[in-house]
């Protein structure tokens, strides 16, 4: 039985693009959006990569942040108590070098939730789940043992989701990689292993070369591409996945930077939308998309957003 959560709004702030939700709080009203997906949390602290970590490409952004984060212990001790107090919904983005490491992050957070009532999630008067209410497994990184990516090796993917599932009764989302020809088998595998939903997708692999020095424009030879540049390609994966697995909830992530692209993701089958690079391009994005979505529903005489999910007329 999949575990759902109720959010105030389908717009979420994407992992790695909004810190732990505090940095944007002054610009993006925390009471206005659906919730925050935290920066990656790993079992041990990670320093991340040297700079340059960023490089702009036409309508895109390459990043190689390297999952800089203080580790799950500091997250539990310093960050979690602050998150819960704020009345926003949070999903923890977990990451690790092995399936066991992902599970360690989930288990440690669960331990804190169980032992510290101040950190426990709440149900607001409007029936919205607030506080820390689920996990997103960032599967787009290499598994140290096999050398393959969690998200592109079905055996490792299944094991990671299964081990995470054992540690929690809360929402568990598998964040898949777009760097595959067909995303459907991976989405199916995640669901069968116990994921309640999938995030489609993450950054695409990309390279940018300084032609004068013939070296990378970033600190790493390759990096992750986000922003409008990946919108159409991400939408393709969302559409394919929804057609093949219509019951599986999809969180769309990749190049949603205006109301038009938000509607396209819903039509293709996403039930929630994540805003990442779009926030950097336009800190007013949340209210602008919300206004655009209402205008679209009015113009199309649709009662609510649910009514348009997956209604892409791909048969003409």
């Amino acid at each position, binding site marked *: 039985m999949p575990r759902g959560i109720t959010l105030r709004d389908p717009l979420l702030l994407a992992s*790695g693009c909004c810190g732990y939700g505090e*940095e944007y709080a002054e*610009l993006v009203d925390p009471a206005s959006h659906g919730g925050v997906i935290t920066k990656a949390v790993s079992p041990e602290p990670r320093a991340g990569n040297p700079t340059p*970590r*960023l490089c702009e490409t036409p*309508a895109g952004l390459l*990043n190689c942040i390297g999952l800089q984060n203080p580790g799950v212990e500091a997250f539990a001790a310093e960050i979690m108590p602050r998150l819960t107090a704020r009345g926003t919904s949070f999903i923890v983005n977990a990451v690790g070098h092995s399936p066991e490491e992902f599970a360690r992050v989930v288990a440690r957070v669960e331990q804190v939730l169980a032992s510290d009532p101040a950190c426990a999630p709440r149900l607001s008067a409007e029936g919205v789940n607030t506080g820390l209410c689920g996990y997103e497994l960032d599967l787009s990184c290499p598994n140290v043992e096999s050398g393959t990516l969690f998200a592109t090796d079905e055996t490792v993917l299944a094991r990671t989701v299964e081990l995470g599932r054992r540690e929690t009764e809360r929402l568990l989302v598998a964040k898949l990689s777009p760097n595959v020809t067909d995303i459907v088998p991976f989405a199916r595998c995640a669901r069968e292993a116990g994921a309640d939903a999938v995030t489609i997708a993450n950054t695409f692999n990309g390279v940018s070369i300084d032609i004068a020095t013939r070296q990378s424009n970033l600190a790493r030879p390759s990096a992750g591409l986000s922003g409008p540049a990946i919108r159409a390609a991400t939408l393709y994966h969302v559409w394919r996945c929804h057609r093949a697995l219509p019951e599986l909830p999809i969180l769309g992530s990749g190049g949603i930077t205006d109301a038009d692209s938000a509607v396209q993701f819903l039509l293709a089958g996403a039930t929630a939308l994540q805003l990442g690079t779009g926030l950097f391009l336009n800190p007013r994005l949340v209210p602008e998309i919300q206004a655009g979505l209402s205008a679209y529903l009015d113009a199309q005489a649709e009662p609510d957003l649910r009514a348009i999910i997956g209604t892409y007329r791909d048969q003409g």
Partner: protein
Amino acid sequence: MEYVPATVIENRELAPGHGLLTLSLPEPQPEIKPGQFLHLRCDPGDKHSLMRPFSILDANALDNTLSVYYKGLGRLSNHLFTVPAGTELDCLYPLGTGFPWQPDWRRVALVGGGVGLAPLLFLARHLEPYGERMQVTGFFGGASAPDLVPALLNDYDFPQQLATMDGSTGFAGTVVELFNGCEEYFDVVYTCGPNAMMRALQQVLAPAVPAYASLEERMACGVGACYGCVAAIKTGEETQNLRVCLEGPVFELRSVVFGT
């Protein structure tokens, strides 16, 4: 911190490749400290490019204006030269920490070059009202005379010592060579410019003088949310990757671990 549409009231070319942009902001203007910067949408028609960080060169709370000194270094900074007065440019400001200053720091050295001049000039202007008890001295360097944009520097009347690599104006050599040994005459040193310059300054500076550096890194969000803009900073025994846009851009010069 605000994200607002700012109106260009003047955009003047100071010299080929160097510009001065004056923006009018909706009221009320928050307090702005020297060393802080703004994130500017350089081309309002281009919704698919990131904003660009620029130091605040001056801010006037009376008429709600602020100005930016910019150099054409790439696509969007060059686009700025074409922006006419009256254009609205979205702007996220004020960002970052400013330069720390204490009332007993009266003899102030500014060591800078390139676009690093901007925050130092704002600091000089900020300290002006303290009158004769303040002694601000600028040590400014560039490759050649035009880099030390006379149309910009002549607007300030504190003493300035100039250095150029080709000797076309002032001392022939680097600004750090020019400054080397002078720190005993100062209570504090502020620096902003190319990393190579600040690293050289870090190496020659006597340990007793407080010194602050304003750093530059490529930025995406400008508010501390993406961790794209970090610099390696020593905090006690540890070295941490701190965000230039949020924890900086100003850091204690000696705490900065400059890359090679």
